[in-house]
């Protein structure tokens, strides 16, 4: 019998193998490991909480329903992020969005809906002041990220929020390594200009 503690200590490849054996707990472990990174990436791509929830759900349903197609030669997280990015990009191709709010969905019609769509920020801020400063800086950079092209956005998020190497990003997004470097360079440049503008 599988216990949660056992699963938490296993590498991704082993958890995937258990999920392929039809273990419900292994599926849930994969969701627990990656729901925040995937949701964060998708949200920062589409910038709408409810939509990001739906797209994150679609991503996990696709991944977990087709686990047999996962190639264990690559990192599971790279495959997962590739699908999450594709889901978000597909959506953006169908619909153009250009506003961002950390304080609730722009489509919320009532105060309750705004409150319900606020973020639980998974942050380790040491004090209320730290938290406020982090939130303020976070808001500025979030708004700046929102102005980037979607391809730049996914590259910069994978590089600096998920800590992926250039090579991993190239594999994940099916892009040449040089293109990834160019996108990240341009994204940093645009973000720097946006932050300078804010400071002025």
């Amino acid at each position, binding site marked *: 019998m599988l216990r949660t503690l056992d699963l938490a200590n296993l590498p991704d490849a082993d958890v995937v193998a258990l999920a392929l054996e039809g273990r419900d707990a292994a599926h849930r472990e994969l969701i627990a490991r990656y729901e925040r990174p995937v949701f964060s990436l998708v949200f920062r791509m589409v910038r709408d909480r409810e939509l990001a929830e739906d797209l994150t759900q679609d991503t996990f349903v696709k991944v977990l329903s087709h686990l047999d197609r996962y190639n264990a030669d690559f990192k599971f997280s790279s495959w997962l992020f590739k699908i999450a990015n594709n889901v978000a990009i597909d959506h953006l191709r169908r619909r153009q969005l250009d506003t961002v709010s950390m304080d609730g969905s722009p489509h919320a019609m009532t105060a309750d809906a705004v409150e319900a769509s606020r973020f639980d920020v998974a942050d380790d801020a040491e004090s209320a002041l730290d938290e406020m400063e982090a939130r303020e800086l976070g808001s500025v950079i979030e708004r700046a990220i929102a102005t980037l092209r979607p391809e730049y956005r996914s590259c910069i998020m994978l590089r600096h*929020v998920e800590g992926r190497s250039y090579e991993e990003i190239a594999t994940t997004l099916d892009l040449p390594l040089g293109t990834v470097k160019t996108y990240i360079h341009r994204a940093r440049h645009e973000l720097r200009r946006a932050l300078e503008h804010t400071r002025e």
Partner: protein
Amino acid sequence: MNHRHLLPNEIDLLVDGEAGFGVAPLRAHILECRDCEARLSDARVVVDALERLPHLAPDSRLADRVMAQVPVFVPAHVAARDTVTRWMPRSAAARVAAIVAGTSAAASLTLAMLWLAMRGDAVVFMGGVVSDRLSAGFASGVREVTLALLGPSALAAIGATGALGASLLVVGFALTAVCTVLGLRRLTLAGRRA
């Protein structure tokens, strides 16, 4: 001093913390050139801000919603293995004992089947004898019961009419029993209502 300012990709190398030997001259240049130092500092502000961005939490019911749409299929070989594992004792000694007992039982059954297969005629003969004895015993029992309940004249009448008479008797008995039960039930219900 090298008077060429760093190129954007060279600033990126420093921001990314690259450690190749080609980076050493770039670091040395930064120590001497205030313009490039300022550019590097600006670039680091952006990267630091990005790296401080938190992970955002989705709705806590995400896993349930996902699992409601994911068909979880347990392959037959896994189900069989799980069943064996469930029945297998936990301690090593008990497991060895179970394996020995199981192997012995399987070997005994196999030998018994082989023995029976080699003596097919004897098995058919024995089966016929046992079947005849059982059917004769059953018929005798039924006759004794009928005689005790209905008397010798009824038994003679049933014997005269054969299978049809016996069938009518059984159907009549069943109908009487059912009608009696239904009548008693109705009486009980009427008594409760009153």
